[in-house]
């Protein structure tokens, strides 16, 4: 079976040990977590893990089943890139003098549709939200001028199809 990108969405109780429990499921099978994001979800007191992996659908399904088996997990789903709307964010810290010395930088900022978050005498910070390849392209464009610091977030995603967590929660409470 062919490997591809899958986004796993896990709805869970907000519990300290759960991240360890979930990451262990990937560790045990030597599956690298390409990106991980934990945040609140659309439901009060329910957390959402967004995990990106590159593997076969068969493995993804088995992993999702194992995740769902954990006591504090309400429901887990997996989706391909086509089935989700997803974004990543990145911050670039760049020396301020470059803004005046290198005209090209201003063009990169405009073309990438990134935002200047802050500027001071020493550095300015650019924020970019978009697909992985867009951030990579921007990184490539800025690299020759020198990037003081760079960081990229994990993927966040919403699915095109509904994820009926409220209904599932109601079912649990029956």
């Amino acid at each position, binding site marked *: 079976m062919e490997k591809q990108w899958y986004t796993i969405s896990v709805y*869970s*109780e907000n519990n300290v*040990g759960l991240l*360890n*429990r979930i990451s*262990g499921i990937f560790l*045990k099978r030597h599956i690298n977590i390409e990106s991980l994001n934990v945040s609140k979800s659309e439901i009060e007191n329910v957390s959402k893990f967004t995990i990106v992996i590159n593997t076969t659908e068969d493995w993804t*399904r*088995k992993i999702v*089943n*194992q995740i*769902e*088996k954990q*006591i*504090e*997990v*309400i429901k887990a789903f997996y989706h391909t890139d086509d089935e989700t709307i997803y974004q990543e964010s990145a911050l670039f810290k760049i020396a301020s003098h470059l803004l005046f010395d290198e005209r090209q930088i201003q063009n990169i900022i405009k073309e990438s549709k990134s935002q200047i978050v802050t500027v001071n005498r020493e550095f300015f910070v650019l924020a970019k939200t978009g697909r992985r390849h867009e951030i990579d392209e921007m990184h490539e464009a800025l690299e020759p001028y020198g990037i003081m610091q760079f960081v990229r977030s994990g993927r966040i995603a919403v699915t095109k199809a509904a994820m009926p967590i409220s209904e599932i*929660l109601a*079912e*649990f*409470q029956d």
Partner: protein
Amino acid sequence: METLKAQKKEEKKKTSMRITGAEAIIHCLLEEGVNLIYGYPGGAIMPVYDELYKFQDKLTHILTRHEQGATHAAQGFARVTGKVGVAMATSGPGATNLVTGLADAQIDSTPMVCITGQVPRHLLGSDAFQETDIVGISTPVTKWNYQITKASEIPEIMAKAFYIARSGRPGPVLIDITKNAQFDELDFAYEKCTGVRSYKPVPQPDMKAIEKAAELINKAKKPYIVFGQGVILGEAEVQLKALVEKAGIPAAWTILGLSALDTEHPMNVGMVGMHGNYGPNVLTNECDVLLAIGMRFDDRVTGSLDTYAKQAKIIHFEIDPAEVNKNVNADVAVMGNAKQTLELLLPLVNENEHKEWRAEFDKKYKIEFDTVIEKDIHPTKEGLTMGEVIEQINLASDQKAVIVTDVGQHQMITCRYAKFRQSKSNITSGGLGTMGFALPAAIGAKMGAMDREVVAVIGDGGYQMTIQELGVIFQHNVPVKIVVLNNEHLGMVRQWQELFFESRYASTVMTNPDFVKIAEGYHIKSRRVEKREDLTEAVQEMMSSKDPYFLEVRVEKEDNVFPMIPSGASVADIRLK
């Protein structure tokens, strides 16, 4: 609504009592019907032990000689009673010594609650004396775990622990309790847990799947059942028997399913897997419908998955959704508790006999009997075989004993030849293959079923891994019968070395102590058998003893267990020699 909640809280306060966390733990155990626990004290759990001292008329604590022994004893108790076994230990090394038992209980779905002491909350993360992150360590080998750091959490968390351990597919739960939470006071009121919002223990059976299953069964010419421990855990023995009899389906078992159906039932065709019976393995690849009931297609059962039952429609009766399509894809998955789903299935299946198909198993049995079984249980060679010892136990116990095995050759031989009339009678470490399991597990099994004979059959290797638990047998006069089948080797590894490593016996030869003298040192009646003519009488003497009894049988040193599916081979390629 809010006022109602407040009212309830107020009522709870009125009926509650102000006690320490340590005392609360005892009350939680008593509320859960626990009156026997196994454990080992130490610094971080001392407040609880102090309460155990005060409550000793209601709650018996058995001091095992090692914390691992406490877990296996709790497992033995759980497996024979169906109740939750409880083990307790201190922090640090006490807690880490529980890990093997937790892993064993996790993979064999045994309900167990382990309670560990922990350094006080303010010292957590400071590398304090006997501090270890047992919640982190035990996460992959527990169904659930939790660290209590406030006394007020105790009742709710303990109730949840027992609920999770016993419900659905059972498993081990570890509760780590910091010392401050044991000393501090709380308003104690206990309410049993009846549900956890994110946890659905038993999936709702789908009538469509059951109808589909019945249709396949009714059309089948060569239907075949392989059942596992799910039948025992789900208490579906009666339903399984009814199905087997009504639909005339030959049924084989995994070693954890053994004893769920009377061994001598005419439709019981034996054991599947690496050292299972010839027919049940070979015919797996000839049946047209395979009903897997409460089993998980372990690799020791299936051999190579690429050649496993490819010709058959697979119906998987399973409680755990993560097991469906994990190793073997199911054509029909019937989710739910086996008792419930089989009950729904029964009226839909037609009466049948499948005489010709059943006769196939007899033919294969004849081949196996002539080449393997006869020589195992009625040997003519000089050396004693493990098989003849088990045969003598069958005779002397009238097939009514609980038999506890360790791991290795003796385990496979026992599972192959032991006969059972009653469920929950075969206790062994299946999934994890934990050497050292049997002796402490037999103690727990005996204390859980005092009215039954409990025979531990152990190899000389595994016996020495937890031999210190003889101390418990002696101190509490636990009348278990211990049979050590001594071949002075780590027999199963030696067998593999002989077959697959050109007889290079790396570290499998054992120079053993005088086991009879060791048992005598613990004041346990003991005897050694070296000759066939003494065997029957010795086993009878052991079985009729009212006290604990140790029997060492010197068996042939280099016997092999056959049949055998070499690892990675197909069930169809099982070797008879």
